[in-house]
């Protein structure tokens, strides 16, 4: 037998690397998962209700039924992700036991712990976590997240929060790059982020793990915008299956994520997709309705 080391940090971040340039789609059943795979999704996120429905229904949103996740895993060959509540390490343990390929410790579900996120280093399965700024991204990476996604505002169909969070992260990275070594500890304190990771970002000009975008992407142009702002891949939640022609829109967003910087192609890709999901005006939302404010 060849001597092997399983589930190392390299294999976790490695899977995130392989998803770059792709689209990860929220699906609620095996049929939707098949549509997503056919459209060219690099992975699917299995959950019982898309964020816009969670928002509408209210109440506590929890990890999905394992049988639903199993059905989706049996239907598609692409990686399957699933969500655990922030801090709910028991849900994460169950998802790992199910054999999902990535766990999303997600603000879309109702947080289980208002002080601590999951110790993600303790798991074999890799984790993705949301962030609104560089400090939050580095805290999650410090805890063991192998992929970061800016949060945006899930289920809103409105790109403005996704843009704000990505611009904030990229701007803070650029700011670090202009600082001297002696400024790093103070900046680490200001960001509330591990010193070593702050130094790493200052030296390399990017996050130490892939940086994707989520929360509000509803059109091919939205995907293009986020890619041009620095997202290495995109998550699309409610945007696909809350639109009038999910299969066509899913394919269009996949193509737009690859040819994000070619407006002539995006013009063709964006033709005849039917109606996008209805969106929400973030300014009219109450603080308590904002999913992005969950987690710290």
């Amino acid at each position, binding site marked *: 037998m060849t001597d092997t080391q399983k589930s190392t940090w390299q*294999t976790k971040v490695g*899977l995130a*690397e*392989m998803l770059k340039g792709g689209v990860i789609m929220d699906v609620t059943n095996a049929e939707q998962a098949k549509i997503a795979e056919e459209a060219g999704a690099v992975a699917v996120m299995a959950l019982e209700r898309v964020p816009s429905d969670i928002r509408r229904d209210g109440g506590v949103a929890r990890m999905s039924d394992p049988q639903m996740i199993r059905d989706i895993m049996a239907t598609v060959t692409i990686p399957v992700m699933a969500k655990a509540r922030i801090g709910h390490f028991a849900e994460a343990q169950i998802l790992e036991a199910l*054999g999902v390929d990535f766990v999303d410790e997600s603000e879309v579900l109702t947080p289980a712990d208002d002080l601590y996120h999951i110790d993600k280093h303790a798991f074999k399965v890799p984790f993705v976590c949301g962030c609104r700024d560089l400090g939050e991204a580095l805290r999650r990476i410090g805890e063991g997240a192998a992929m970061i996604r800016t949060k945006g505002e899930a289920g809103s169909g409105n790109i403005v929060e996704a843009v704000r969070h990505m611009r904030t992260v990229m701007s803070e990275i650029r700011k670090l790059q202009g600082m001297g070594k002696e400024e790093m500890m103070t900046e680490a304190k200001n960001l509330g982020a591990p010193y070593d990771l702050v130094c790493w970002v200052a030296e390399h000009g990017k996050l130490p793990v892939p940086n994707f975008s989520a929360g509000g992407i509803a059109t091919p142009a939205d995907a293009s915008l986020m890619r041009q702002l620095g997202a290495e891949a995109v998550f699309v939640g409610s945007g696909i299956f809350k639109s009038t022609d999910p299969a066509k829109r899913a394919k269009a967003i996949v193509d737009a994520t*690859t040819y994000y910087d070619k407006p002539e192609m995006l013009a063709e890709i964006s033709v005849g997709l039917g109606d996008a999901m209805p969106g929400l005006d973030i300014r009219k939302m109450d603080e308590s309705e904002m999913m992005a404010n969950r987690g710290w």
Partner: protein
Amino acid sequence: MTNPKSEIRNPKPMVVGVLAVQGAVEKHIKALERCGVHAIPVRFCAELDDVQGLIIPGGESTTVGKLMDRYGLDKKIVERVGEGMCVYGTCTGMILLAKNIVDSDQHRLGLMDTTILRNAFGRQVDSFEADLSIDEIAGPPVHAIFIRAPYATECGEGVLTLAEVDGHPVLMRQDNLLASAFHPELTDDTRVHEYFISMVRCQVSPRCEQSVPQVSRLFDK
């Protein structure tokens, strides 16, 4: 007027493309640059005319296959391979190069006489690292990272297996095609990339036997 003989004496600088429709593109470009080779991302058919070698990186094989089909890249790659372009497929690339994929009718190039089993070692929690001894690559074992990796269940006569894990082929060569189930682009070790570059060099310059003994040894077999 271009004189073909002078072209051999002063060959154009080598350019290797990395198929950039989806996947770990940037890591391969960095690895090629560390080897001193000019590398470009390839998303359009016309860009394939400018490269002597192409790397198909790790990614999702169904996604990359569909995008190659939608934008005509698959036909163009097959045409360029017929003209001598070398292709190195890592993971997804190894799947897409294969003639047969177990239990799948997904898009593929079908150039390599192999049958590939996807996710052959298991799902993500079974992803692993291992040291591989590869005869054709000098020095210490190659530290290889396998992520939801495939292996070959069958290889045709023209396919040379260069490395195995538990008896399963994970690095194979057939003429101007190279395929690995692992990801050398994720480590700092550039020896597998250098091996591929030596294959490209052989296609470009007929005098390669002097400079690349390992590859000429393979040709003798």
